[in-house]
């Protein structure tokens, strides 16, 4: 895949003041030819264009099957999971150090999921991505977590911030559900997805505050004032990861809003920008030179 090349003459704008430190996007997605969109290349190129402008050093990304084209986004078929992971591996091969892969699996197909994990880890994947194919505390997630623990892979789990009812096309999980899974697998790190991705984030902060092997990413289209403040107070900056998911402008906005909260030191902001990600994914996961 060819991506838009970075215009090195552009000023990097990813935060207040002069930015020279790395920036790791811990929750990104790419499209591919099998997702049924004729503009998939343009969308991928736009992520790189905006990422270069923001100063993103590395996109930690996954592909979610066919994004609904041949099976539902949140319930991807095994064939779509494999096709998406294949496409993600190709992107990593083409892009080098600026993209790292999270392996997408559907826990309803245990053997297939474990095979995908093994196959993609051997080719350099650094984490696991779970959608909403099964509730987070379901026993079917245990074999995946055991693999992740053995291979020191963090697991990024799609989350609905406080589920109060079922929603169509997803088997949604919230912070409390993920907390039960995390307590069963205390040696691995879970990334709770997009605190700004919909639902009541205040519930999330309460639900996972005491579950210290869960960190949260700050992505999502939601940019509510008070959300970052609540996250910092409940989880500490050391349990937050910069991320963009589907809306990069809200990621940049939240990055810029960290300092005005008055709750973060300069080093705290570096933690959220990249240092926490390095600790969680491992020192060898990124080439930030």
């Amino acid at each position: 895949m060819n991506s838009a090349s970075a215009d090195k003459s552009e000023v990097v704008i990813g935060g207040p003041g002069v930015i020279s430190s790395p920036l790791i996007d811990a929750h990104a997605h790419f499209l591919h030819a099998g997702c049924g969109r004729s503009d998939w290349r343009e969308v991928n190129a736009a992520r790189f264009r905006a990422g270069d402008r923001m100063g993103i050093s590395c996109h930690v990304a996954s592909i979610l099957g066919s994004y609904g084209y041949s099976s539902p986004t949140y319930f991807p078929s095994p064939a779509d999971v494999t096709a998406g992971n294949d496409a993600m591996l190709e992107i990593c091969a083409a892009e080098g150090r600026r993209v790292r892969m999270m392996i997408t699996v559907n826990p309803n197909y245990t053997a297939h999921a474990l095979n995908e994990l093994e196959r993609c880890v051997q080719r350099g994947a650094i984490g696991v991505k779970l959608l909403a194919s099964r509730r987070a505390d379901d026993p079917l997630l245990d074999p995946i977590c055991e693999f992740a623990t053995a291979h020191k892979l963090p697991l990024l789990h799609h989350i609905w911030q406080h589920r109060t009812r079922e929603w169509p096309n997803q088997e949604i999980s919230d912070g409390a559900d993920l907390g039960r899974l995390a307590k069963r697998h205390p040696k691995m790190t879970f990334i709770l997805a997009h605190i700004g991705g919909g639902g009541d984030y205040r519930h999330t902060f309460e639900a996972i505050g005491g579950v210290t092997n869960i960190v949260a990413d700050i992505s999502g289209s939601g940019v509510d004032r008070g959300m970052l403040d609540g996250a910092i107070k409940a989880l500490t900056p050391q349990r937050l990861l910069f991320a963009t998911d589907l809306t990069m402008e809200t990621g940049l906005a939240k990055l810029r809003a960290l300092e005005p909260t008055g709750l973060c030191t300069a080093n705290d902001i570096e933690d959220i920008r990249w240092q926490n990600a390095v600790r969680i994914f491992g020192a060898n996961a990124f080439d930030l030179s």
Partner: protein
Amino acid sequence: MAPSSSAGLLDPSVFIGEYPFRDVPHPEPDILAKVIAREGITHAWVGHLPSAWADDPTAGNVALYRALEPFRVTLSPAPTIRPDLPGWESALHDAAKAGAAAIRAYPPQWKFTPDNAAMRELALACAAHKLPLILTVRFEDLRQRSARDTAGDLTGAAIRAVARAGDGVRVIVSAAGRDLIEEVHWGLTAAEQARVWWDISWIWGPPEDHLAKLFRTIGSTRFVFGSQWPLRLVQSPKANLELLPSDVANAPLGDPRTWSGG
């Protein structure tokens, strides 16, 4: 970032006051004045947030005028007028005399049907006073809305009905996304389209680039800056503009002040 007019950057989509469904940090005018100064916004049109749910916004309007009085150089009131209440015409007249820069109305919160005749009358009356009418699609994402918040989103049908009310009408629609904007825009004649500005507070940027696509198809001057402070981070629309692709990076935004003189 897209250049603003010579009058500087206007944010017509801000509020002061408490939000009834969750705690919002410091929704006070002195904080707002500091925030817009920090962010390089030269002027804001300010609504009174609790008035969206008030049976009678009169008291809220009085509170708004009073609260903004020390900050009128940069903060102009956008009071609320309910056109289903007796005497709303005189309330509008009073608002104009009090220096309102725009008028706010909240049809979903008032349970108006999309074809509500009173809304068309309000739009025409605002036009007679050279006051834009600000409509708000939503205050929060549907997925996090309180069970006590029973108002739905403002519909495209309701916006089209107001835009079709008459020649002089000018509407600013706050917090719309791409689908709603396209539904309304392409459902209007060219003359009607020119009566509507859209704030960019809820339009997605990259990688989907909804804002860039809308600039290319509808034209950047149909859009205005907008943050929905204090509900949302003011940094978000600025970031969106700064991340536009190069072909629209310097596209000019619309400026309702050129019409209203506000």
